[in-house]
Structures are given as structure tokens and as C-alpha cells.
């Protein structure tokens, strides 16, 4: 997958999270900045996994980004999400992670149209000064009430995040039947180029 695709995927997730956030604001008339504590909704046993789990959404985004984007979830273990907000009946359990180190190219980018079971979602993101300035919706499903009911029952209750590249200070690497002997060498040379 090339970088553009990864960015596009992230933006779709980002945009989708923002959409869910707006829904929450609309439905609960509650400002997200008040929701300091994790407010997790426990669902009825979902059909797909058979295990009752908590459902939560953590919004990813850049610190200086749109107000609609709540916070940055860095995937480094030292920096857990500063703020978590949960959505009643969110359609996916989307934990968006946006690497704070990545700098995007300025411009307007349209994400893929994503099938979310009950319709399609497509977002457009505007990047200024290497950061996400705004995310808007080109399309989203209209039959929201019905969608919620379907989504509550059909979606697996697991967390998700967009993958990001992390540092190489590790003792061992887990991968599918991997050639890890060349891993450190190759990574070291790549990091030299990245400087």
C-alpha cells in the first residue's frame, strides 16, 4: 500500500469518527469537551462475537486540526488517549490512530467511498501546513435511526485503529514466516535515508 492510500484510509476513518461525534452532539446535546471521562456503553450481546464487550470510539486527529476532531491517540504506550468519548450505537468501533510524526502534503483529498453496511460514507479532508484543517462529508447515509438499529446488532464489538509505523527499538519481531535476520539491517538503512 502506498502512502497516499494509507493517508486516504486514515482520513476516511477520521472523517467517519467526526461524523459519529456530530451525531453524538446532536443526540445528546452534550459538548465533547465536557466528556472528560471514558463513558463506555455496554451493549447487549452482539450476534457476531457472542461476547458482551464495551464499545467505544476514540477520535484521532491532529492537535491543531478541526474542532470536530477530538484528540490524538498516539500509539506509543507512553501517551494514552487523553480523552475518550463513547457513542451510543456507533456503527463501527473505530479507534483512529494518527501518528503525530507524520506530516501530510497540503491540499484537498477525497477519501474512498466506504460501504458501512447501511450506506456509503465519503469524506473530503483539507490539509494545511501539513496538518488536517477540516474534514467534510460528501456522502453519508440518511436513514440514521434504522441504521443505528442494524449497526447495534450486526457489528462486531472490537476496537480498531489505523496502523502507523513505530520505532525499531525492539528485542524481537513477530511476523508471518519472516526473514527477520535482515530486518534490523534494512531498517537501519531506511532510517538513515529518512534523516
Amino acid at each position, binding site marked *: *500500500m502506498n502512502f497516499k*492510500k*494509507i493517508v486516504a*484510509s486514515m482520513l476516511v*476513518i477520521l472523517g467517519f469518527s467526526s461524523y459519529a461525534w456530530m451525531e453524538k452532539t446532536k443526540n445528546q446535546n452534550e459538548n465533547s469537551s465536557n466528556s472528560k471521562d471514558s463513558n463506555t456503553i455496554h451493549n447487549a450481546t452482539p450476534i*457476531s*462475537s*457472542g*461476547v458482551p*464487550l*464495551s464499545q467505544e470510539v476514540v477520535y484521532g486527529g491532529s492537535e491543531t486540526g478541526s474542532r470536530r476532531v477530538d484528540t490524538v491517540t498516539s*500509539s*506509543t*504506550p*507512553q501517551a*494514552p488517549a487523553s480523552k475518550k468519548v463513547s457513542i451510543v450505537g456507533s456503527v463501527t468501533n473505530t479507534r483512529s490512530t494518527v501518528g503525530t510524526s507524520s506530516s501530510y502534503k497540503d491540499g484537498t483529498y477525497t477519501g474512498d467511498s466506504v460501504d458501512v453496511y447501511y450506506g456509503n460514507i465519503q469524506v473530503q479532508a483539507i490539509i494545511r501546513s501539513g496538518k488536517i484543517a477540516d474534514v467534510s462529508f460528501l456522502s453519508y447515509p440518511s436513514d440514521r435511526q434504522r441504521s443505528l438499529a442494524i449497526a447495534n446488532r450486526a457489528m*462486531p464489538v*472490537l*476496537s*480498531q*485503529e*489505523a*496502523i*502507523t*509505523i*513505530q*520505532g*525499531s*527499538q*525492539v*528485542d*524481537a*519481531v*513477530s*511476523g*508471518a*514466516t*519472516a*526473514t*527477520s*535476520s535482515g*530486518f534490523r539491517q*534494512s*531498517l537501519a538503512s*531506511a532510517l538513515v535515508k529518512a534523516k
Partner: protein
Amino acid sequence: MKDSRIVMGMPVTVEVVDIQTSMSDIDSVFDYFKYVNDVFSVHKHDSEISCINRGEITPQSWSADMKEIFALAEDTRRVTGGYFDALRPDGLYDPSGIVKGWAIERAKKLLQARGLKHFCIEAGGDIALSGSNSSGAKWIVGIRNPFKLETIMKTIYGTDCGVATSGNYLRGNHVYNPKTKKHASEEVVSVTVIGPNVYEADRFATAAYAMGREGISFIEKMNGFEGYMIDNKGIATFTSGFEQYTYIK
């Protein structure tokens, strides 16, 4: 003390931190893997498994290890609802899906029997962790980024557990779904499983990968296991207890 060699057709790294470690400790692990390869490799003409597949030896005369592997393969087939099956579509037996994890776990016990406590054994991306690393902290394991193999995209911290990844991004699409007799879903790129030991982690990673998208829900239901699944869109889906392994404490 640390060494990497190619054994069982894959790179194997053994690192032992205990101060009394000798080279013979390290050698013992590589020698053991060589023995396992000689017995279980379907690519070796004179291996025991090849002899079995040619019908040259009866079950009564199988080695104790072969009997154990067949029993474990049957157990794994049962607990995974048929998603693991050592019997291939061509009618030949290939237990390699559990042999690697089993061999690493055996090697771990071998080092423990030598009085060693702090070590990491990695074979082809599957890892047994014991005690602490050379800094006296938890072992740090990176999960390979399937889209950029020279990078890692998740760091986890563990001690006395096993980590294994099943996927299709190296060596072609090497896991097939025994139920449909087809290759596992290409939508799921890799599944990493953390379990009580590497044998358990490996066999359930293999089965979960074969299940496609449902695999991660299967891991969620298993007590003592956590999973991290990556799809072809670069989105990771992970189990409810996975995050505890992403903290260094």
C-alpha cells in the same frame, strides 16, 4: 548471549540473558530445531512425516513426538471448529501449522531445564518470551508492518508468554481454509496472537487467520488470548485486552 541461524528453512534467533549462559546452551536450541526439521519436514524425503505420507510406517511405530503432534493436531482441529486441519486437500498430512510453535515451546523448556530463566526464542516470526530482557525489563516485541516489511507498526511488551503471527504477506498465501478448501481470505493480511505460550499463540493465530474476519472474534472469546488483526485497508482490529500489552509497565 545471542545468535541467529537458518534452521527449519527460516531464520531463528536465540537470545539468553542469564549471566551463566554458555554457547552450548544456545547450540542446544539450534540442534533441537534441526532434529524437529528432520522428523517433521514435509519437504525432506526421509523425514518421518514423509515416510508416513508414503504409507511406509504404521501408526504403532511412530515416534513419541509424532504421536504427540498428531494428538495435538486433532485437538487443535476440534477446538478451532475445523479451521485448523493437518490433513491437506491433497490427502497428505502436514502438521507444520503447529510444529513450529510446539518446537519453540519445547526449546523453551529445554533452556529452563538448563537453569536459564531470561531468554527470547524467535523462529520465523513466532516468539517465546521468558523472564526479562537484557535491560532487566519486559521483552519488547514489534509486530511487522505487512505493507512495509522493514518496519514495525505495533510494539508490545511481554514476559513469560508467546507471540505468533499468521498472514499471507510472505511466502505467498500459505494458510488455507480447511472448510472451503481454499486459501484464507485475502482481506485479512495478518493476525498476531499473544497467548500463555508460543505453541498456543501459534496454533490459534493460524486458525484465526484461516477464519478471515471472524478470526479476531474467535480470539476475543478465548480466555488468556489477545489478538491484533490487520486488513488490506491498513486497519487493525484488536481484542478488548490487547492494549494491556502495549504498556511498558
